[in-house]
């Protein structure tokens, strides 16, 4: 990631911690170590071992009718995230060619569930309107239409790395002169489909808590969320006097080609992504002050991620501070990477690293420098976010103080 310097000029996050109130609330509650996971309300989970999830409450009050009711919750959440990012970055008319790239795994699955319900169980008729509304590319297209973005409009799915890859693709759009500003992010909504899926593969927490890197971890929590980074070439940002949070210094994505569900046991693909990201940023392991880990709280992820960091960081692995925000907001799948990226951006801005909550019993196999027991105030010059997903998708992004 050289030649043009890409900077971050706007951020937004919508999770169960802030319930749409904005990125400041998200960040404050994250640093406080608040738990954003609650008893699941939107679906009946009677009989399931897992009873918790990260559902956003009261989303509608922030939308103010901005998105028609008929649209998917994914469209609503992402459009709200885009609006907040647009406001944060002060994107106005005639600012240049603005594009958008959205990562999501299941997209408008709520509409699709309704389509399936109607087709197979209710009146057994196919509903054309529902079918149209379930297309995943509606998500960025609706926002592009609403905010009159004329630049690239991309919808991408690389499982839980989706929003990282959205950032990398967006940086390429700017670097190669196809856009002046890109809004890159992701969205995932809570759904019975997703909950049932992760329940089926035995990945959900059984004790009501998400405990990344803890010996007593029992699994992840399905959550919803959306996040957006505003990417812009530095000169373009300076020319319009935009506030610059930090620089996108590097990034890379790789695949394991190993297993459809589990990460490579030695974290090979993820370590390669880390090393490539360091290389693209012109950075050394000792330059990284903070890693926002993928940290799902599942045995396979925690071990593979720890090994990947060790492999890539060498003797520096035990020095770098690591936290897993999924302990507080759960796993937001397609948007999880960008939410981790936002924690990096704010960590650099505020020199605070949020904690990993519920990590109470050390796991001898996960023996790195996890930030537990409260936030950590420290100088953060460079931060890295990691993501790993189904199919062995891995990614790493590096942000640097401007």
């Amino acid at each position, binding site marked *: 990631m050289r*030649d*043009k310097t890409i900077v971050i000029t706007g951020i937004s996050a919508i999770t169960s911690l802030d319930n749409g109130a904005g990125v400041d609330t998200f960040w404050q509650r994250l640093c406080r170590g608040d738990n954003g996971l609650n008893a699941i309300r939107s679906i009946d989970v009677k*009989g399931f071992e897992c009873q918790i999830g990260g559902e956003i409450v009261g989303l509608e009050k922030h939308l103010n009718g901005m998105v028609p009711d008929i649209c998917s919750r994914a469209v609503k959440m992402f459009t709200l995230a885009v609006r907040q990012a647009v406001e944060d970055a002060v994107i106005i008319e005639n600012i240049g*060619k603005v*594009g958008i790239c959205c990562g999501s*795994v*299941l997209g408008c699955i709520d509409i699709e*569930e309704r389509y*399936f*319900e109607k*087709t*197979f*169980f209710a009146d057994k008729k*196919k509903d*054309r309107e529902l*079918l*149209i509304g379930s*297309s*995943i*590319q*509606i998500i960025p*297209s609706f926002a*592009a*239409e609403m905010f*009159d973005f*004329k*630049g*690239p*409009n*991309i919808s991408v*799915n*690389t*499982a839980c790395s*989706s929003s990282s890859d959205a950032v990398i*693709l967006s940086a*390429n759009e700017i*670097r*190669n*002169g*196809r856009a002046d500003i890109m809004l890159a992010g992701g969205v995932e909504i809570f759904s019975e*489909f997703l909950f*049932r*899926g*992760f*329940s*089926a*593969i035995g990945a959900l927490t059984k004790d009501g808590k998400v405990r990344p890197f803890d010996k007593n971890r029992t699994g992840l929590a399905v959550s919803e969320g959306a996040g957006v980074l505003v990417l812009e070439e530095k000169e373009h940002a300076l020319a319009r006097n935009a506030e610059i949070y930090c620089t996108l210094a590097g990034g*890379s*994505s*790789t*695949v394991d*080609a190993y297993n*459809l*569900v589990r990460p490579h046991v030695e974290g090979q*693909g993820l370590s*390669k992504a880390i090393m490539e990201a360091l290389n693209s940023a012109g950075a050394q392991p000792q330059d990284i002050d903070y890693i926002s880990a993928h940290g799902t709280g599942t045995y396979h992820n925690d071990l593979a991620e720890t090994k990947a960091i060790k492999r890539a960081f060498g003797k520096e692995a035990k020095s770098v501070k690591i936290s897993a925000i999924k302990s507080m907001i759960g796993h937001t799948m397609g948007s999880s990477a960008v939410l981790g990226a936002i924690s990096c951006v704010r960590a650099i801005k505020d020199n605070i690293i949020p904690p990993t909550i519920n990590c109470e019993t050390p796991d001898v196999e996960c023996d790195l420098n996890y930030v537990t027991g409260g936030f950590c105030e420290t100088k953060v010059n460079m931060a890295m976010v990691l993501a790993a997903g*189904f*199919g*062995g*998708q891995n990614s790493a992004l590096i942000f640097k103080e401007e």
Partner: protein
Amino acid sequence: MINMNQTIAISGKSCVTSLGEGVEVWIDAILNGEAIEPVINPDMFQTEINALQKGPYEMYRVQKITAITLLKALEDARVKITESNAERVSILFGSSYEIEGFKSDFFKTYRKSEPGLTSPSIFPYTSSSVIVSALSILFGIRGTNITFSNGITSASEAIIAGRDLLFSRKTDVVIVIGTNFFCDDFDSELHNCGFRQECCAAIVLERTEEAESTGKHVYAKIEQLHHGFGANNRRGDWKGCFITNRGNSFGRSFVKKEVRVKPWESVNSCVDLNSVFGNTFSASGVLGIILGSLFLAGSTVLEECYNNIESSEILFINEDNYGNHTSVVIKK
């Protein structure tokens, strides 16, 4: 930043339909008025599938067809995946609804309500990204994997990203796969919007200088790429041949603002992909390029339908009903 004068070479291609492999075979059958089976039966490639098959579980139909398409494209481009190049080969996938069958099957199972009634084996396949992940595992390809879900323009977006990957030297070979599979769950919708036959198409992209220096056959070169939303970013002075794919995926526009191409009076020739193959959805981005490269190579497959399609460069425009559009220039 990419030097916009650089080109990428199309060094391999494949297209699988119910008729077998090859676009020319398909076009011949269309022109001859043959009744073409809409759905691909992967059994016709059973020998190759058996050779590819790993592990005890039989591949799903979608996996088989995409695997055969990838295999044929790699063979055509003379690309062999080895331990030394596995990390330098990438697959970019254009997909819209290929996994809908998995989704509805999974839904139907869990809809019966009991917590135990879920399918751990189907669930991973409900994410469109898993098709290309499965291909990576099958072929041992460890470069970049990205699935684009941009409807009709999916594969075109993949080609644009592929060009960036090649010129950033992140990868040496990019295989772009576009798919158009039949799905029982919305069969009537597919037919309403012009679906005729299933197809899965792939092109292999390499940096031109490297493809040529290794003596590869280069079908065509991709010179310019653009994409955007809700605005006409196409060259208005184009005098050569056009290939267009006008999205009509669901027979109406979702966005209010119409995006329409300029009148065709000044254009030498315009070939509409839809009128040739029917609506090819996410495969269209690849099919348009394959068709263009056939024209550039002097193929006469569509001679009786269009005049003046002989050209040294072709502009392929792909657009969907959401307002997204891409344009690609390919040259001899």
